């Protein structure tokens, strides 16, 4: 219901991928990392991209974030095509926050300095934003690490700091590249639930990359399933489970049937590749 209302108000999709291709040329070979990829993500949506390693998941959101450039195709942000021929404007980049697979903290800065780095770069180093940073730091329980260097903090704290750094400039979109993949399951579940509550509160748009089927079902409105060689979209699966989601749902029949369907999809994709 909620989603229906939103879609009526916001007719322009937040993010569009149109026939996106990415080819890497290395000395030895040419890799088609992404082939003819299409995707539409609405404002406030929570979308996951799932698929085996090397199917181009990271490549997709790195292109959107301007870290690398597509070989062909178009990406639109708020209905406006992104000009990938030159680095994005600060205005465009400010709309996004990128969470890397590894914490990617700069070791020479304290956790707080790392977290507030985007504020410095985006020219948002105002008391207001500093206050917001402090708030995020305390919400995520990072106070005691705030003035420590990354080598002194735990993996979980660092990964949280990575999330906070991506949020500190109040982006409209979070791009998350297997953000909690390296953490143990308990911690990952906890951080996933924290993520859902942040998403709900801030009404941001999230593209979440994972290779964990359960995680994808638990978090997402829809899941894009990809396959390798070439990296491509196989199917989009809408997850019609009620919100708020909780960890108990994992054992419910509808949840299980979703995960089963996804596992089958990914499995059959992989089988086809073996042949």
């Amino acid at each position, binding site marked *: 219901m909620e989603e229906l209302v939103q879609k009526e108000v916001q007719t322009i999709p937040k993010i569009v991928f149109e026939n996106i291709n990415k080819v890497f040329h290395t000395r030895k070979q040419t890799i088609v990392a992404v082939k003819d990829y299409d995707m539409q993500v609405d404002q406030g949506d929570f979308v996951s991209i799932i698929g085996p390693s090397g199917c181009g998941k990271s490549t997709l959101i790195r292109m959107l*974030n301007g*870290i690398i450039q597509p070989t062909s195709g178009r990406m639109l942000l708020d209905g406006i095509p992104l000009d990938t021929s030159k680095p994005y404007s600060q205005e465009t*980049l400010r709309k996004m926050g990128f969470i890397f697979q590894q914490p990617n903290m700069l070791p020479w*800065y*304290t956790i707080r300095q790392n977290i507030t*780095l985007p504020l410095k*770069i*985006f020219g948002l180093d105002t008391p207001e934003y500093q206050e917001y940073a402090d708030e995020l730091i305390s919400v995520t329980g990072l106070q005691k690490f705030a*003035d420590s260097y990354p080598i*002194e903090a735990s993996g979980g704290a660092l990964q949280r700091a990575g999330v906070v750094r991506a949020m500190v400039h109040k982006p409209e979109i979070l791009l998350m590249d297997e953000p909690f993949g390296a953490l143990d399951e308990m911690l990952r579940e906890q951080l996933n639930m924290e993520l859902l509550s942040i998403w709900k509160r801030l009404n941001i748009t999230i593209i979440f990359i994972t290779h964990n089927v359960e995680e994808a079902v638990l978090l997402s409105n829809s899941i894009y399933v990809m396959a390798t060689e070439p990296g491509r979209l196989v199917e989009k699966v809408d997850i019609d489970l009620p919100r708020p989601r909780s960890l108990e749902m994992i054992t419910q029949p509808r949840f299980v049937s979703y995960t089963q369907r996804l596992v089958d999809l990914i499995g059959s994709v992989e089988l086809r590749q073996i042949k």
Partner: protein
Amino acid sequence: MKKKSIRKKKGIDWMSIIPPWILLAIIFAVWEIAAKTTGISEYILPPMSKIIHGVITKFPGELLPHFLLTVRVIVLGFIFATILGISLAAIFSQFNIITKAVTPVIIWLVITPMITLIPLMTLWLGYDPVLRTYVVILQATPIIALNTLNGFVNVDNDKVELAKSVGCTRMQRFTKIVFMNAMPQVFTGIKLGSIFSTIAALSADIVSGNAGLGFKISQFTKYNNVYMSYGTIFLVGLIGLTLYKIIERIERRVVLWKN
């Protein structure tokens, strides 16, 4: 101010202070005993006590002006070389092709003993102790530039991607990421630079003659004051070591994020 928790943890590290002194004491003791018991000529192996006594008594009068000259040459040359080496590396690293082109040239300069240029430089610049400072700059700059350049061009791809993701300008990327990332290598370069500076200054003293600790060493040797030769050589070592230790201290204050 923000508290730097890592710095607070660092008290005096006795484990890195005591052992070198013990070793030094052992070397001196063995030297002394060997000199007194083996019957090796005093021209080859003067007793350590005589060496130390000689340096201490001759330091205020005879050695001091030479000491000051050489220290000035080392320190001035080293400071200029550090500034020059880092600046050159910063400029070179901006362009891939330049980095590739200059690297072998820098290595070639590192290997070249710059004192060989002294006779030529004397022709151009006339006789002047300042000449020695140029020699030091020439000798130390390449090794500093080489290490620094290495640090500047080897940046983790992850960190470059982070810079892109937040839209760092070229300058921001250099100051906040490339330079900081290279800091350990910059310090390695600076430390090597301090060693090169000391060696270059001493060699320049010897080649130029007439002043400086290097000149004194050759004089003492010439007039069979072997114990004073040794003593002055030790004094030079002490200068180099002190400089090195000072830099190491600074490094530990600056590079807080490494253990």
